[in-house]
């Protein structure tokens, strides 16, 4: 067990290094990525630009620049090129919004995804299944930004209902009710995609499991259908969903709900990342990348452990 964890930690570290380095390389090589002219401003002279280059060590070989940037990132001193704001501070500022969005949406999409999956599997072939399937496919196919904009238009800007506030994030500590109300639309919009997807996956798992021999044995033992469904069928078919959820959740916390955050102007980590990429502002990009990778790696270890707990066949003996 210990050996397993140590190996994973080493692996995680290597992943972080690789991801950060590759990201760095990409953005350094992109045309237009040179930050010096932008920082210098429109009226800069060549000398200004050269000075800035000097100051920011932009003439050093790329690996030492990389090393320098990593150092300053981890010591909390890294500053954005464009805004001169401290990267780590900005990320921290965005975390509450992102976290609130992720956890809320996660609960919704997991709960409804399971519900939808079970209903459509249990009524497979019948009307309810077909309706759910169509809805799921619609949900999966609708682009998040489109759905978000439509939702805002319909429900926040008064056409026809102005039930919800139009985006923006209110911290939980400031006003819990407003926090909740402001997040309802973003939660729903983000969850719709996942509900459709999870529902389909679970439906397929359940239908496979129902045909397994051990389910036949359970019925032959005289167990009631509900018990067979929950304790035997679901207990097995939910296992892959756990893995999926772990990784999706990690990705969203890491800021991958970029579109949702931007459309609703939640100013979370995802939106910060989106803005930085648009302006090719390397330091925040690096910061967010490390932040996101960390979560994904962490959750993938958690998911592995969870999987082994749920499925005894996988446990290292």
């Amino acid at each position: 067990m210990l050996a397993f964890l140590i190996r994973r930690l080493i692996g995680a570290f290597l992943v972080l290094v690789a991801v950060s380095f590759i990201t760095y390389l990409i953005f350094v090589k992109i045309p237009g990525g040179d930050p010096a002219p932008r920082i210098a401003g429109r009226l800069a002279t060549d000398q200004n630009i050269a000075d800035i280059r000097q100051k920011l060590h932009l003439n050093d070989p790329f690996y030492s620049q990389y090393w320098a940037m990593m150092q300053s990132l981890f010591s909390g001193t890294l500053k954005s090129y464009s805004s001169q704001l401290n990267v780590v501070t900005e990320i921290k500022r965005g975390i509450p919004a992102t976290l609130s969005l992720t956890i809320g949406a996660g609960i919704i999409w997991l709960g409804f995804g399971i519900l939808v999956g079970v209903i459509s599997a249990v009524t497979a072939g019948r009307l309810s299944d077909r309706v759910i399937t169509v809805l799921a496919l619609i949900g999966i196919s609708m682009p998040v930004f489109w759905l978000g904009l439509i939702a805002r238009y319909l429900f926040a800007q008064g056409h026809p209902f102005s039930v919800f506030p139009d985006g923006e994030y209110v911290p939980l500590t400031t006003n819990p009710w407003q926090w909740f109300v402001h997040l309802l639309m973003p939660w729903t919009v983000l969850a719709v995609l996942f509900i459709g997807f999870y529902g389909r996956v679970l439906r397929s798992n359940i239908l496979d499991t129902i045909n397994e021999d051990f389910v036949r044995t359970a019925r032959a033992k005289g167990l009631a259908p509900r018990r067979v469904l929950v304790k035997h069928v679901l207990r097995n078919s939910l296992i892959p969903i756990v893995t999926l959820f772990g990784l999706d959740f990690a990705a969203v916390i890491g800021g991958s709900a970029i579109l949702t955050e931007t459309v609703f102007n939640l100013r979370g980590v995802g939106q910060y990342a989106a803005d930085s990429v648009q302006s090719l502002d390397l330091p925040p990009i690096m910061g967010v990348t490390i932040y996101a990778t960390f979560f994904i790696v962490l959750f993938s270890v958690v998911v592995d452990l969870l999987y082994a707990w749920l499925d005894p066949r996988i446990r290292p003996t």
Partner: protein
Amino acid sequence: MAERLIEVKDLKVQFATEDGLVKAVDSVSFELARGQVLGIVGESGSGKSVTAMTLLGLTRDTNTRFEGEVLYKGRDVLKMNEGELQDVRGNEMSMIFQDPMTSLNPVYTIGAQISEAIQIHERADKHVAKQRSVELLKQVGIPNAESRVDNYPHEFSGGMRQRAMIAMALACNPDVLIADEPTTALDVTIQAQIIELIDRLKDEFNSAVILITHDLGVVADVADEIVVMYAGRVVERADTRKLFYDPQHPYTWGLLGSIPRLDGPKQERLHSIKGTPPSLINAPAGCKFRPRCPHAFDKCMEEPRLENRVEEPGHLDRCWLTVDQKRSLRVPTLAGTEEAA
């Protein structure tokens, strides 16, 4: 005469599929008395498994049609509702299946799976049920039962898993144990162990056993009566000794002749029944075995009735040949000297 536990009368089970109506079981009748071991022998497609599962109502589905009666202690299983069926399953009639690896839930311990039956049917509490599970594992011959009760199915070997399944089936002291090809997936040595176990437990638990298999050798030693099925019908039914020493149906001869024997000189060529089992959707007219029978004659275009044609009452067969004809025609098949397909 021992109490009659099961009476199957003219059972028909049909599945409506895209390709047509599959007549999986086509008028099957037999009985089972307390303390008796009934062997149901047949190959793939004979309907033996469907018959067995129907005894527990496991074949019910929107596409399935039933006719006839399946009486368990006088009550018709086909007419029971789901609740009554649940009371019977695992409690009064239990079933074990062919592949013990896939027939046990991989995420629960063996103990938990055995206890589940006890907790549900006897409303026992967890600890009592677990104690019983350990006892049962000991009875089926699993060493270190106290610790193995907490193992998962994948931690058991094939033979042990099958024993665990048997323990699970016997947990609530059922009157009837149905074993559907319990040894087919196992090695010959383990097969011997399991058959011996079933034989012993039949006495200890005073259960009746229905043993389903495609291998006549397996039932020769343990069965009291044997039913041979082909294409959804019973083609012969007799006491074990009578079936082996005075078989009356050409399919039975074919089965007996196909088995490589150890008790005799080596056969030059094994008998084999030519052709393949018929489609259950478009069955041939007349006797279902006719296309593959080397002794078919014109009367075989008319479906033979399952009747007692021999002196011995209780020995039924479904073949138009006279008893004398049968006794002479079968000799080369059984001896393996017949020109095989």
